[in-house]
């Protein structure tokens, strides 16, 4: 017995040393390339105020995504009284938040914050610009638009003057770029902003220049589109900037005729929307006001910029796309939840329904609206128990009976989601997706405990489950811990060490001091 004990302590120590070594090594490695590589992190903030004219008014907000140079390391949204869903365009890979107003009496606010890590070394992005374009898309990027008037006489005239009749496509693009960046004068104000007027007057601003270039390309039968985004530099009143992408040799190639960048734009050009100029769009009749700000962030260990060459970047989970990171962080939090449960069960002596029930309940509420979630949890538990009691009269076999409870739980959840949506409570359906299987098993076990051991015991275990789930929630809810487990997955070694130590704890549980309380009376 003594041997096992020593071995366990030794194992725990080893795990902790290994964990500390890994963390230390990583912190060291992280800082060096950070300084030498000049990579940096920017915070882009959207502040949108929306005056809706009627319920159901919509707001479309283009969001940044990962690119060859940019990596969204963190993002946060805040939007009260708005139902928000984030969609991704299958062709351009652009992300867009669609916000719907449920109550139009007062203005609503939408704020979004993105931490964007810029790598000066390009890497293969999730969306490749080298995807072949289908005919419908090609036609779309060749057509006449309100501000890109490729059929306008002015556009045709300029194109004829610079094309010389039989130039190759590459030569033509070059001439168009030269014409737009050099021959068009910079106007005093921002305008004109459309292609025809710009080419007619021979002067324009940045937007007019980009549109003129796009129109000329389209007139020359070269697919082209506008790209709108931000040039990352410190600014409290940042303005979106538009440049051009031209589809040539099955690849989208960026051109900025305003700042005279061709074939490539600098790494601090953050593209946000392809084929459009407005970052925020609102439905007709509503009004919206928006400001953007950009700020360069000080570096912290939790916001690292590491080199792309070193193989141990495999362990740097912060480099992954944001949507993947959220899932990974959730999975990485599971062992910590289990650790909290082990602590409560083996050291405190609180009983729970199932080992992983508290953790999974807490995790399902971590990334959502926990208040609504908690109310729905209690409602489903109540309704489920009522059904289970009724089912008892039918005397069904175990598996079909569980199936019915599962059905009831699923139906309750669906109705709850729908009702929340109707009342405009919960922002989105996924915010209250409780683990249905866990709920089902919990109802069944609660009922059996109720039948076999009485209501007091059943309530006691239920309270234990809720208490442990609450503690799991409080710990897992803190934004910090999600980031720590992602930045340092090695932390799990410490968790494992803690498991080993709890696993060898042979002292009294806190609850036993209560259980054996009458022993004290005997020694008098």
């Amino acid at each position: 017995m003594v041997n096992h004990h020593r071995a366990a302590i030794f194992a725990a120590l080893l795990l902790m040393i290994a964990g500390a070594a890994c963390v230390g090594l990583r912190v060291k490695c992280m800082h060096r390339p950070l300084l030498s590589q000049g990579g940096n992190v920017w915070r882009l903030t959207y502040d949108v105020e929306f005056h809706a004219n009627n319920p159901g008014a919509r707001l479309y907000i283009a969001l940044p995504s990962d690119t060859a140079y940019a990596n969204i390391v963190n993002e946060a949204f805040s939007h009260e009284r708005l139902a928000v869903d984030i969609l991704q365009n299958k062709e351009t890979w652009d992300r867009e938040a669609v916000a719907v107003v449920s109550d139009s009496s007062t203005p609503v606010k939408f704020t979004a914050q993105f931490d964007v890590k810029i790598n000066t070394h390009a890497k293969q992005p999730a969306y490749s610009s080298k995807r072949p374009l289908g005919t419908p898309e090609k036609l779309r990027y060749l057509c006449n638009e309100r501000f890109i008037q490729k059929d306008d006489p002015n556009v045709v005239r300029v194109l004829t003057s610079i094309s010389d009749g039989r130039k190759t496509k590459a030569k033509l693009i070059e001439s168009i770029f030269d014409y737009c960046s050099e021959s068009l004068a910079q106007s005093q104000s921002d305008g004109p902003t459309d292609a025809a007027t710009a080419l007619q007057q021979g002067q324009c601003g940045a937007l007019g220049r980009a549109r003129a270039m796009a129109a000329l390309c389209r007139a020359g039968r070269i697919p082209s589109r506008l790209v709108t985004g931000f040039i990352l530099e410190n600014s409290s009143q940042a303005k979106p900037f538009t440049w051009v992408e031209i589809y040539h040799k099955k690849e989208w190639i960026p051109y900025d005729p305003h700042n005279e960048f061709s074939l490539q734009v600098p790494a601090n050009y953050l593209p946000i929307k392809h084929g459009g100029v407005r970052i925020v769009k609102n439905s007709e009749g509503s009004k919206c006001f928006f400001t953007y700000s950009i700020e360069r962030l000080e570096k912290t260990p939790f916001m690292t910029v590491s080199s792309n060459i070193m193989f141990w970047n495999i362990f740097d989970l912060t480099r992954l796309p944001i949507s993947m990171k959220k899932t990974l962080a959730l999975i990485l939090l599971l062992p910590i939840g289990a650790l909290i449960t082990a602590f409560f069960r083996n050291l405190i002596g609180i009983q729970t329904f199932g080992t992983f029930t508290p953790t999974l309940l807490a995790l399902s509420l971590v990334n959502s609206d926990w208040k609504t979630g908690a109310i729905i949890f209690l409602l489903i538990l109540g309704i489920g128990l009522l059904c289970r009691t009724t089912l008892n009269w039918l005397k069904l076999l175990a598996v079909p009976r569980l199936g019915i409870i599962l059905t009831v739980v699923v139906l309750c959840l669906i109705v709850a989601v729908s009702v929340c949506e109707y009342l405009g409570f919960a922002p989105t359906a996924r915010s209250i997706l409780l683990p249905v299987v866990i709920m089902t098993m919990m109802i069944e076990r609660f009922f059996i405990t109720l039948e076999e051991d009485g209501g007091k015991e059943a309530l006691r275990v239920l309270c234990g489950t809720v208490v442990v789930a609450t503690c799991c929630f409080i710990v897992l809810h803190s934004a910090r811990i999600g980031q720590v487990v992602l930045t340092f997955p090695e932390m799990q070694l410490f968790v494992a060490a803690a498991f080993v130590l709890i696993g060898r704890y042979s002292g009294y549980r806190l609850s036993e001091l209560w259980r054996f309380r009458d022993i004290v009376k005997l020694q008098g």
Partner: protein
Amino acid sequence: MVQLSKWRSFALPSDLKRFGILGINARNIGFLLGPDMRSLYPYVDNKVLTKKICSSCHIPVPETYAIIDRFGDISKSLRLLEKLDEFVIKPAHGAGGHGILVVVRKKDNKFETSKGEILSLPRIRYHISTILSGLYSLGSHPDAAIVEKRIAPHSVFTGIAVGGTPDIRLIVYKGVPVMGMLRLPTKASKGRANLHQGAVGVGINLKTGQTFGGVRHNRLSDIHPDTGANIQGIVIPQWSKMLTIAMKLSDAIGLQYIGVDIVLDSEEGPMALEVNARPGLSIQIANRAGLWPRLRTIDSQAECITRTAEKLKLTVGLVRGDTP
């Protein structure tokens, strides 16, 4: 200090240590997690196997009427049950007394249970099928149902066992009984002899087989809560035979730390009912003594002792002088 501890409503770890109280963690780590224990668990978790072992060692057990492990066998067994007036149906893998149905008499083709319910034959069929589908087994695995003779409690327990059959729980460590307790069903426990369901546990002097002390819901208790009868000073008949059964069963099963449950039938005497691999710890409150010192004594001596008489002597030696 004495004054303080009287007011205190909880014990300090030092109090428990002084009394030699064995906690759950210490029990699990020190006594349940032996090297070759897992493979032996089926013999205690599965009551069919336990019964087989008992029969092969000539340990008396309640007579088995039928073992049903297939849904197809239920109808056949029901025909058998129709002829019986009293019997017990229980799951082979049950725990905590769950899923046990005791039929005490038959009235116009209906069965009356110990809880006073009147059940028809289809209800009995349903109960058996829930057992087979694994409702009462650990991990909800498919299970078998055992139909066996109902124990007629010995007259010595009249007035102190309400709604069920009392049994005697003996903790056996390395083949030596180290602590014993009489478990009395109550109304709260619905006739079951499980302490956490509200049954009363009464400490037993291992030397004399006489009861003393008592525990209910982890509190000290000297009387039966339903009848008010004194539960102390009862001399359990055929005590030494019970100790022998426990020792034989422990040797046959091979686990170093077990709880053996023995019932006393009014006609056939002591019979082994089941074995528990994780016996509860409230027995220490019932006996007003901790398990630690006794287990340590055995650890220091039992290795070389194999003969039953020597083990008995060791058991008797564990009893403190001041035990009533």
